[in-house]
């Protein structure tokens, strides 16, 4: 049964405390990993040298990188446990699975951006872009952890895999890291905080809440499931 129709400014809980904590740990670990990783990746450039000196040299950089790699691994275990073994986590994971409707909605969104459609398409709990970011960051982090472990324990790894495997791992780790950086620190930050309607900041990452008006505009299918077809009180297109 649909809940009572909310006012457009009423705050609705979207992310739980545990989900926000996972996001904060991911943000912290990936930021440090990106800074310490890029220092090695671009050690021959001026920015690489500046980062290396700020991080206390090559040895200290490696230690910091490994400490936060462990943080990322623990987070991966925490998140997998949450997503697979809690009711709320499973529900979120199901909502994040790509469906045929996502491709349709994305095409409609592009048509809207190109001026060939008047209305925004209707999205469910997660938009196709949010799903892309989640799976990109999640699978990308798993690739980084797997390749990072080979590089960390390179002496042991070299005893069982040929050198070319090690070379590939090295390239994949470096460039996948760059891709992850682009996905999260450029695209994700732009879409969540800097895009029209959200600039200068979207507070959902802090409070876990969005207004009923935002829910109606950006996740209309989810809004309808919760409150029915009528828009929030006071809402104007």
């Amino acid at each position, binding site marked *: 049964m649909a809940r009572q129709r909310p006012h457009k400014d009423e705050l609705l809980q979207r992310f739980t405390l545990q989900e926000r904590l996972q996001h904060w740990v991911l943000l912290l670990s990936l930021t440090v990993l990106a800074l310490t990783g890029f220092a090695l990746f671009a050690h021959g450039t001026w920015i690489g040298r500046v980062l290396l000196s700020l991080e206390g040299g090559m040895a200290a950089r490696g230690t910091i990188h490994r400490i936060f790699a462990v943080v990322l691994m623990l987070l991966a275990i925490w998140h997998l446990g949450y997503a697979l073994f809690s009711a709320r986590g499973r529900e979120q994971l199901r909502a994040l699975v790509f469906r045929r409707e996502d491709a349709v909605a994305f095409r409609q969104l592009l048509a809207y951006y190109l*001026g060939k459609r008047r209305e925004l398409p209707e999205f469910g709990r997660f*938009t196709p872009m949010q799903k892309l970011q989640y799976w990109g960051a999640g699978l990308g982090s798993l690739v980084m952890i797997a390749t990072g472990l080979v590089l960390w324990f390179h002496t042991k790894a070299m005893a069982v895999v040929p050198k070319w495997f090690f070379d590939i791992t090295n*390239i994949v780790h470096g460039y996948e890291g*760059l891709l992850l950086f682009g996905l999260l620190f450029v695209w994700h930050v732009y879409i969540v905080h800097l895009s029209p*309607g*959200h600039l200068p900041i979207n507070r959902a990452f802090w409070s876990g809440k969005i207004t009923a008006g935002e829910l109606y505009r*950006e996740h209309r299918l989810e809004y309808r499931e919760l409150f029915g077809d009528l828009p929030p009180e006071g809402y104007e297109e």
Partner: protein
Amino acid sequence: MTAGLSHLLALFAASEAAPEFPRPVGVLRLVARIGIGAMLALMVAYVFLEQLAAWKRRRGNGKATTPQG
């Protein structure tokens, strides 16, 4: 696909034996750079389209909203 992969792996193995022969690591690095360049270009194109739509909408009714991603 499998034959192509086997060929690539053979190239890697050959480069180990004679590093001056082909440079598959360099090729892989180039492919990675092209791939990342393409991804960045897509991101920039998305931002451009969204900003363009928002600008047109602002001109139309004074509001600019886009779906959060």
